[in-house]
């Protein structure tokens, strides 16, 4: 699994996660993901290249969202694939972390 972060316009940071977000993958991205969550205020997490999500991955996303929220910022998810979206919904994450189907919708929500 890998992670990259890029600054977009409007003080928004886009984090792209790729691969299998299981226990093994989550251990790899946990520290760099927490670093971005600690340093940035508006974060879009692109899950379009994540083909699998398990509970440890959910934990990483939730901890990151909590860290950003505690600073008055916001973290949103964009483009999860069908099964990944189903995992997020089943775990109740869809009511805690906003999920958008396009990057435009996600950045518009963060800009407002």
């Amino acid at each position: 699994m890998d992670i990259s972060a890029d600054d977009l316009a409007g003080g928004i940071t886009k984090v792209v996660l790729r691969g299998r977000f299981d226990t093994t993958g989550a251990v790899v991205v946990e520290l760099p993901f927490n670093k971005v969550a600690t340093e940035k205020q508006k974060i879009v997490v692109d899950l379009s290249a994540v083909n699998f999500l398990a509970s440890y991955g959910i934990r990483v996303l939730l901890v990151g969202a909590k860290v950003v929220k505690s600073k008055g910022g916001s973290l949103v998810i964009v483009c999860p694939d069908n099964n990944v979206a189903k995992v997020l919904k089943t775990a109740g994450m869809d009511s805690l972390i906003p999920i958008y189907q396009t990057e435009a919708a996600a950045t518009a929500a963060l800009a407002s």
Partner: protein
Amino acid sequence: MIAMSNAGASRLVLRNDVAELERLAGWIEGFTGQGTSPDVSFAVQLCLEEAVANIIMYGGAKDDAIVIAVELERNCGALVARIEDNGQQFDPTRAPPPAPAVSLEQAKVGDVGIHLMRSFANGMDYERRDGRNRLTLRFVEPAAPSSE
């Protein structure tokens, strides 16, 4: 260690080490590779990852040698997974569902793995026998759309 125990069944034995989860994922992919829909493959991967990760992380003390045997088998159109371990007694079918979080600030981290297993498997049975946990999970392919 992979051995064919009978026709159509496959068995994998794992140690209680987080590094074993990668081997589990590759082994499941090999079994479900053909003749299994992407949704059922995903469900099997998810449920077995959650079940085995739970045993590795909570099945015993750090130095306990826990042996986890996983079997996959096709049976009457369903895919059946059996997970057997000699760790401490734990019945995931009796775990209470997680309480819905009222806000991001108050949301509890963790506790979703068993809930995911319950939701993605079509059946989950547990028994404690001879000092071992035996968990059986069933996965059923969704019915093909009628051609009529």
